[in-house]
C-alpha cells in the first residue's frame, strides 16, 4: 500500500439521498478522508458512463455514484437506471485495465451519514491499495483558428 | 480484592483508569462496549450471574469507568460458562462472552487473576497440554488441575474416575497430533 498516495475520488451524488447524507455527515461532524470531491445531480438516474469515464480521464482514481435505496428513489426508478448503467460499465472497465472496484455504486439514504462516512473511508482505503490511475490521452490537434473538441458538427 | 474498602469512603477518580476501557474496547469482544445501556439483560440471561461477585452488566460499567483492578481481579470473568446467552440477548449487540475471554487473557498476562478459584489454573493447564500434544486427555488434565489447586479434590474425584474407567470412558494414553512441534511453531508464529 502506498502511504504517500492520496487518491482522488469523484462523488456524483443524488440530491435527495446521498447528497443529503453527506450534508448530515457534516451536521453530525463525522470526520472522513478529504479525498472526495462532490458533484450534485438531482437523481442518480442522470449519471451516465460518459461522466464517469470523463472523471477517470480527468484524474479521478475512483468514482462514487450515490443514489437512493432501491424503492426509495425520489423519481421512482432513477436509481435502477444508474444500477443498470454502472453494472454494464463495470463489466467493461477491466478491458481498459481499470479495476471495477474503482467505480462504486452505493445506495445511501438521506439519514445514512455514518454509511456515507464509512463508504468514503473504505473507498479511500481501497484506492490506496489499488494505487493511482493514470489515464494518458493524446491531445487532439485543433484546427487552427477554431476551438474544436472531438467531433464537430456540419 | 487487595483490601476491603471502607464503605463510607467515596471512590476517588485517581484510582480509575479511563484508558482501560479504551484498551478493552480494542480487543475482540470489545467492539460495541461503549454502546452499553446498562439494561442488565445479559445478567438476567446469564445462568452464572447469581454466583458472580459482579454481574456482567456491572463488569461492563466498571470497565468503562476504568476500574481496572476490580475488573481483572473479579471472579465474574472466570465464572462465565461460555453459554453465549448474554451475547444473543444483548440489545446493543455487545459480544459479552468474547469480552470475558479478552479480560481473562489480560488478567493472566497481568497476573491479576483471582487465586481462590481453580479456573485460571485449569485454563493454563489446558493450554499447556494442547501446546505440548495438540490434544487433551480429560483424566490427565483434571489430575494436573487438582494437583495445582487442591490435591484433596483428586481424592474426592477418585470414585468418579473409577466409574468412568469401568464404563470404558477414560483413557490413560495421551493422544497427540503427528508432529506436535509444527503445531507449536504455528502457535508461536502468531504471538
Amino acid at each position, binding site marked *: 500500500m502506498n502511504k504517500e498516495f*492520496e487518491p482522488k475520488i*469523484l462523488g456524483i451524488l443524488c440530491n435527495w439521498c446521498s447528497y*443529503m447524507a*453527506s*450534508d448530515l*455527515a*457534516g*451536521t453530525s*461532524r*463525522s*470526520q472522513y478522508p*478529504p479525498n472526495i*470531491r*462532490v*458533484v*450534485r*445531480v*438531482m*437523481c442518480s*438516474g*442522470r449519471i*451516465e458512463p*460518459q*461522466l464517469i469515464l*470523463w*472523471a477517470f480521464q*480527468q*484524474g*479521478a482514481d475512483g468514482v462514487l455514484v450515490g443514489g437512493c*435505496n432501491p*424503492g*426509495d428513489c*425520489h*423519481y*421512482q426508478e*432513477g436509481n435502477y*437506471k*444508474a444500477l443498470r448503467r454502472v453494472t454494464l460499465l463495470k463489466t467493461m472497465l477491466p478491458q481498459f485495465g481499470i479495476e471495477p472496484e474503482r467505480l462504486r455504486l452505493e445506495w445511501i*439514504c438521506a*439519514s*445514512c451519514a455514518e454509511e456515507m462516512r464509512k463508504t468514503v473511508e473504505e473507498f479511500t482505503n481501497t484506492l490506496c491499495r489499488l494505487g493511482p490511475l493514470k489515464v494518458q490521452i493524446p491531445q487532439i490537434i485543433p484546427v487552427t483558428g477554431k*476551438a474544436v*473538441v*472531438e467531433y464537430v458538427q456540419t | 480484592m487487595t483490601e476491603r474498602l471502607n464503605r463510607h469512603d467515596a471512590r476517588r477518580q485517581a484510582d480509575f483508569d479511563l484508558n482501560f476501557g479504551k484498551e478493552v474496547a480494542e480487543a475482540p469482544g470489545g467492539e460495541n462496549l461503549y454502546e452499553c*445501556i*446498562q*439494561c*442488565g*439483560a445479559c*445478567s*438476567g*440471561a446469564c445462568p452464572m*450471574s447469581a454466583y458472580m461477585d*459482579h*454481574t456482567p*452488566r456491572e463488569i461492563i460499567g466498571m470497565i468503562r469507568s476504568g476500574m481496572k483492578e476490580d475488573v481483572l481481579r473479579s471472579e465474574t470473568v472466570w465464572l462465565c460458562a461460555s453459554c453465549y*446467552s448474554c451475547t444473543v*440477548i444483548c*440489545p446493543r*449487540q455487545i459480544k459479552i462472552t468474547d469480552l470475558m475471554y479478552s479480560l481473562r487473557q489480560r488478567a493472566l498476562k497481568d497476573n491479576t487473576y483471582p487465586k481462590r478459584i481453580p479456573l485460571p489454573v485449569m485454563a493454563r493447564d489446558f493450554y499447556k497440554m494442547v501446546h505440548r500434544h495438540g490434544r487433551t486427555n480429560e483424566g490427565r488434565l483434571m489430575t494436573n488441575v487438582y494437583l495445582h489447586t487442591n490435591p484433596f479434590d483428586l481424592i474426592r474425584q477418585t470414585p468418579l474416575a473409577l466409574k468412568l474407567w469401568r464404563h470404558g470412558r477414560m483413557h490413560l494414553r495421551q493422544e497427540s497430533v503427528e508432529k506436535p512441534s509444527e503445531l507449536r511453531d504455528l502457535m508461536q508464529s502468531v504471538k
Partner: protein
Amino acid sequence: MLLRDEFSKNGDIRIGVYVCDCGTNIAGKVRVPEVVEYAGTLPHVVVAKEYKYMCSDPGQDMIRREIKEQKLNRLLVAACSPHVHEETFRNVAAQAGLNPFLFQMVNIRELVSWVTKDPDKATAKAKDMIRAAANRVLFHEELEPLKYHIKRNVVIVGGGIAGIHAALLLADSGEHVYLVERESSIGGHMAMFDKTFPTLDCAACILTPKMTMVKSHPNITIMSYSEVVEVNGFVGDFKVKVRKKPRYVDEENCVGCFECIDACVFKDARYPNEFDFGLGKRKPIYMPFPQAVPPVPVIDADTCIEFKTGKCPKECLKACGERAGIDFAQKEEIVELEVGSIIVATGFDSFDPKKMPQYGYGIYSNVYTSLEAERLFNASGPTAGELVLRDGSKPKSVGIIHCVGSRDENHNRWCSRVCCMYSMKLAHLVKERTNADVFNFYIDIRAAGKGYEEFYNRTMEEGVQYIRGKVAEVTDNAQTKDEEGKLVIRVEDTLLGMIRRIPVDMVILSVGLEPQHDALEVTKMFNISCSGGGWFMERHPKLAPVSTMSGGVFLAGACQAPKDIPDTVAQAGAAASEALALSHKGVIEVEPNTAFIDETLCSGCQVCVGLCPYSAISYDQEKKISILNQALCQGCGVCAGACPSGAAQQHLFNDSQLMAEIEGALAGVL
C-alpha cells in the same frame, strides 16, 4: 458542446465569488483568505470576497451592490449546503437584477470544514470545489422558474386521529377533503384504547365526537374500506386512484340499524374479531366496534356462508328488506380523485413479540401485548372492561415489560416514545380494576411531556413497583412452591445489583411501534422517502417537520416517527395548515431543472420515451422525433443520461455543466 475557449475569447463572463466564514464554522478549518485569493486567480473571476456571515443582511447587501457595480453576470457563493441557503442567494441575485440561475452555491461547510480534520486539506478541498463551480457557471444560462396552478382539494391517507384532526381543520376552512381509510371504520389505534395518559380521559369520549363530526361534515368525503393504489402528477395537481373494496353493504342505503347483524344465520358471534386481536368474537356481518364510523356493517366474504357456498338463506337480506342495504353483488371500484395536496397519515404497526420467544408470547397464554390489554380494559371491548385472564380468573400480580422490540439492535433500534407512558397507564388501570401487584420492568423511564412525570409519581404512590432492568426471560419453569403455576420473570434489578425471579399471573408486553408493514410501498406511491428504520422522512427534521421531499405531500402522525396523541394532533394541525397555505397561495414556483430535447439532434430513437417515470416524453409521429412535455417533467434527468445522441439534456445539469464541474473538481493537486 464544451466550447470553453469561446468564453475566454469573448471575455464577457464576469464571475463574483463570495466565500463565507460562517463564524468559525468554516473559517475554523478552511483558511478563507487563502481561498479567496485563489478564487481571484481563476479565469473570468472579477471579484472574490470573504465575509463573516454571507447570509446576513450586510452580506447580502454587499453581494447585491457588487453585482451591480462590477456588472457581474455569474454569482458564486461558497458557504453551506444548497439545501440551506441556495434559495436565499438566488433571491439576492434576482433582487440585483441577475437571473437567479446564473448563480451556483458551493458547499464548503457540510462537505468540507465540518468533516475534515486537517486545515491544509480542508483549504485545498474548498479551492477545488470553488474551481469546479467557477468552471460550471461558464455554461449556465438564464432560466425562468416554472409556475403551476394549485387545486384546492386535499386527500388524506389514513383515518386515525391524525387524519381525522387534519380533515376537520381543512374542511372547516373550506377545502374539500377525501379521507381514505383502509379499515371499515375510521378511528385508528386510538379507537382501541380505553383511557389516555396522563389525564386518563376516556379515549372514546374524546375521539368519537370527532368521528361523528367527520361523518356529518359537508366538506369531507369518507372513503372507508379503501386504499390508494396509484398517485400521478405533482404538487398542485395530483391524480390519486383509490380502490374501494366491496363491503357488501351499500353505504348510501344503510340506515345503521344493525338488524342485519342480529338476523345473521349465525346466532352467536364465533369468528375472532380482528379489532380485538381475537380476544372478542364477531359474526360474518359485523361492526368492528360499536362506535364505528361510518356506522355501516361489513360482510367478511371469507366467513360468510353465502360467499362460501351460495346456499345461505340470507337472513340479513330479508331483515334489511326494502332498505336494500345488503348488496352481495358489490364489486371492487376504482375512483380517481384530483387534488392539490396530499397528507399521509398512515400511522404505525406494533412490534410482533413472537420475534422474541424469550418472552413467551404465543407460548404462554397469559402473556399479552399492550394492545390486547387495552382491549381488555376497554368498556366496549371483549370483556366489557374487566381485566380477566383467558381462564376467566383475575390476575393477582401483573408484570409489565417495557421496550419490547424497541431500543434493541436485534429488532428496532429506536425508542418508541409512548411505551413508558402507556405502560404506566396500564399499571394504573391494573391497580384501579384489580388491585393486583404490578411490576414495571424498564430500561429508562422517559416521561418528558406535560404532566407525564407527575403521572409517573402518581403510579408510584399507587404502589406500582418499578424495577430497572431489561427482562431476560419469562418462563413457566418453577423452582419453588410459590412459582408453581405462575409465569416467572427473570431479570437483573440493576439498581439493586441482583438477579431476581418474580412470579406473576399475567405478563403484559409493552410492544414498540414500527412502520406499517407496507410502508415501503406507500413511499413509492407518494414518492417520499424513508429515514432510518422505515419511518417516513420529513423535509427537514427541525424546520420542515411535516413537509416531505415531494412538494405537496405532507406527513401527519406516527407514520413519520413514534408519537403520542398530543404530538400527533399537533402535527396533524401543522400538516393541515401547510396544505392550506399551499392552496391559498394558488400558484407554485419550482426550480426549472427540467429536461429538454434538442430537436435538431433528436433521431426519434425513443430510448428516452419508456424511461421517463412521468410519461413526459412521447414520440411525435409527424416530426418523427421525441417531444418532452415540460409541465410533466420533474427534472430527474434520466432521459439526459440515457440519450445516446446528446439530444436530451437537463437544464442546470447539462453535459457541459457537469463535465466542466468534474474537470474543475479534479484539476487540483491533492
